């Protein structure tokens, strides 16, 4: 084959297939292939793909009772699949038309409660039957071949020749000798690579500016509000009860770290109450307020068992003892729940005396430093 052809009007290359064509097309001429049967051709092709059909269990004989039974079975499966599919369609389209409306209604029974299950049941049945029909067809109506295909390991020829091309190309670049280029490439590569990653820098923000993890909206004089926004007086709660309170700031009841539990201790709890050192005056009378955000993984600790004075976090079952400064007594939490210092303002409503004196919520690396 030549890449140069000087014939007048030629585009420059020979217009006949080169001798590299080769392969089975040379071994088997169209005339020879025309003499072979379909089965022979199938097996011939398979042989070129290193596949040999060892053994064939023939399909059931046409017209035999076995075949008839199998055909009936497969056809019935497909027909049922179609039936279920159309039934699903009727329910989907017909609801709200000639069938009752599919939309949810307050009674939670009737057609709206059946709509989704029916679609699922019929649709699922239909698709499953399609699958079953296909498997039955394959198993009962197709001949069972046992074929064997050879595995080829990597070819030594391919490795050597590819290696030669790669090494040759690399050699021609002369990069091994031309150190100046290699060095400038390394320099360029690191520079361009970093430059392409540069925009990700916009994601990085300093978590320590203003200590957002250590502060909440609580501050001196901020009232304790219920979720509905009403303030609380000391007489409002029964002994032994717990109320979740929020700071009286806009959106205070949606803040992720401000939720606080206001607990009124029972008299017998008051008598054994041992707050943490330096926090003896954080409570007000028989009231104490602790952060609701678990010091373990940040879930709201919600389950207060006043008989045992324990608050349980439902996420990982840390337990905190209310009469011991909300000290963790069981489970994975390590730190007590921070206590909110509270008092009563001149109108008689509960207010915070300051923000929490430590960070609320889960522990982090430099928590103790800020």
């Amino acid at each position, binding site marked *: 084959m030549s890449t140069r052809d000087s014939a007048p009007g030629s585009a420059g290359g020979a217009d006949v297939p080169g001798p590299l064509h080769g392969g089975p097309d040379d071994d088997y001429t169209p005339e020879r292939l025309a003499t072979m049967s379909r089965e022979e051709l199938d097996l011939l092709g398979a042989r070129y793909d290193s596949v040999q059909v060892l053994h064939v269990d023939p399909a059931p004989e046409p017209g035999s009772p076995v075949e008839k039974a199998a055909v009936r079975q497969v056809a019935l499966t497909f027909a049922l699949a179609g039936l279920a599919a159309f039934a699903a369609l009727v329910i989907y389209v017909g609801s709200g038309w000639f069938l009752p409306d599919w939309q949810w209604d307050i009674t939670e029974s009737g057609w709206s409660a059946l709509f989704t299950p029916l679609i699922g049941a019929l649709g699922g049945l239909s698709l499953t039957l399609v*699958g079953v029909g296909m*498997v039955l067809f394959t198993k009962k109506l197709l001949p069972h071949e046992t074929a064997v295909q050879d595995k080829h390991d990597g070819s030594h020829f391919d490795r050597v020749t590819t290696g030669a091309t790669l090494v040759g190309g690399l050699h021609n670049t002369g990069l091994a000798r031309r150190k100046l280029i290699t060095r400038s490439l390394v320099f360029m590569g690191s520079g361009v690579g970093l430059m392409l990653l540069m925009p990700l820098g916009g994601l990085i923000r300093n978590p320590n500016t203003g200590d957002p993890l250590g502060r909440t909206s609580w501050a001196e004089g901020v009232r304790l509000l219920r979720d509905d926004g009403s303030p609380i007086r000391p007489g409002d709660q029964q002994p032994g009860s717990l109320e979740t309170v929020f700071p009286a700031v806009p959106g205070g009841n949606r803040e992720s770290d401000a939720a606080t539990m206001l607990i009124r201790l029972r008299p017998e709890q008051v008598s054994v109450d041992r707050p943490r050192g330096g926090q003896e005056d954080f409570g007000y009378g028989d009231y104490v307020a602790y952060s609701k955000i678990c010091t373990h993984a940040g879930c709201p600790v919600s389950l207060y068992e006043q008989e045992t004075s324990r608050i349980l976090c439902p996420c990982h079952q840390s337990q905190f003892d209310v009469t011991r400064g909300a000290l963790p007594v069981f489970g994975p939490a390590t730190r007590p729940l921070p206590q909110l210092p509270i008092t009563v303002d001149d109108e008689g409503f509960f207010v915070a005396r300051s923000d929490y004196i430590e960070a609320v919520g889960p522990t982090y690396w430099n928590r103790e430093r800020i």
Partner: protein
Amino acid sequence: MARTATAPGVPTTRLGKAAVEFDDRLIVAGPLRRTLNKVFPDHWSFLLGEIALYSFVILLISGTYLTFYYDAAMTEVVYEGTYAPMRGLEMTAAYESTLYLSFDVRGGLFIRQVHHWAALLFVAAIVVHLMRIFFTGAFRRPRETNWLIGIGLLLLSFAMGFTGYSLPDDLLSGTGLRIISAIILSIPVVGTWVHWAVFNGDYVGEEILGRLYIVHVLIVPAILLALIAVHLLLLVKQKHTQFPGPGRTEHNVVGNRLFPAFAGKAGGLFFIVFGVVAALGGLVQINPVWLWGPYNPAQVSAASQPDWYVMFLDGSTRLFPAWDINLPGNYTIPALFWPTVVLPGIIFTLMAAYPMIERKLTRDEASHHLLQRPRDVPVRTSLGMMALAFYVVLLISGGNDVIAEKFDISLNAMTWAGRIGLIIIPPLAYVLTYRICLGLQKHDREVLEHGLETGVIRRLPHGEFIEVHQPLGPVDEHGHGQLAYGGAPVPKRMNQVGGARRAIRGFFKPIEEPVQVEIEQRRDEHGLAAAESRELTTSGRPSDGGRPQEPRD
């Protein structure tokens, strides 16, 4: 192609002509034939990976549908939709769009539940597929790369699961997100920085759902899709492994060609998987977000649990003792860091490195295409069972509050049982599995040497009773089988070697001639009919060697 147009064998039918036109342009006949002729081995356990693949297809289809309605915005809106109990409630636009999808889109709830069920099945199929690969040694050279890709797929499926179930922004998913936030914060040194990068500030911020959404619908699926493509490409390139058996060697694959037998079965399996997921999606309620309510950082419901595949990490978090490490300079490594970051890190590193570790320890550098039966590799099998026991203890502990409540057990006792169980059950599982493997190996050898127990008792002339054993192959002069164990299942019952004739087909009345079946079996050397000359004489005991045999008639 004037040459072929005049050549013999040119198709005359319309379809044939169309095919030639097609191939003239695209030249696909060769590759197509190679694909159609590809041989797939036939074993049920090879379908597990397919189930994962089909679940992924279902996930792509159903997920695309969900994106038509879902809105990843965290702006506060007031619900005014169909679901009466929630009307007037403040919630994020994300949660509102989830409710809209569930209550105001015809069939939307069905698709959402299909998506969730398919996700659960996807991870489950991957895990079981991984177990199959592990216990049969299919990860050995040359398939380490595909093992690594598989581990990557498993990790990505976790990422898909987590980002996916955070999207509805209901109370449960918000609680999960809160825990993730705490986990990120717990990373030493960079935790708070990573948190600020991911959430664009303190928890919860305004951006996180939009970011999770794009990760869930574009970034991770794209990587998943690419990795699945490489996974399958490598599988085609390296060809399947197969269990040892007649005619099966390290250099071939015995089974069905892709077309039509394998394609029929695989296509059938796809529809069955699709059908089962669809039925689950319609009939079995999952994640009824309207019952959980909108996310509120101050609220949580009892028994808040993640989807099953993350439960083991929830379990480890519950079990890990309260051990903060306080470093000089007032730095802290939170206890939460160990069970949620370090432990999965170790688990997945060990899993990914296992093929390399085993290769180093066994010095087995050879290529393997024949699978191993778990009993034949007792150490690996026992290690796997040990890991599985560890995993199951964590999984159960992930729901220990529910178990404690349902069975009226102390919650603290459940936690301690988990902590102690985590240490003592895995070694027990190792020892037990090892003994079982050895026992099974011994029984295989026993059958090969002494034959199958036939259940036929015979009285010898001197009065002794023996149970007649059926040798599986030729025997030596002592009556001992000469077959060596080849790694393939050894028949353990007479019916497995054709002790009984196969049943005549037909449900109400026979649809084939018993005589024909008899002839067929005789031809294929199946069944007792073909084995009249087989020897059924020895007791199979070594002491029978050299004893006078019963005269044969």
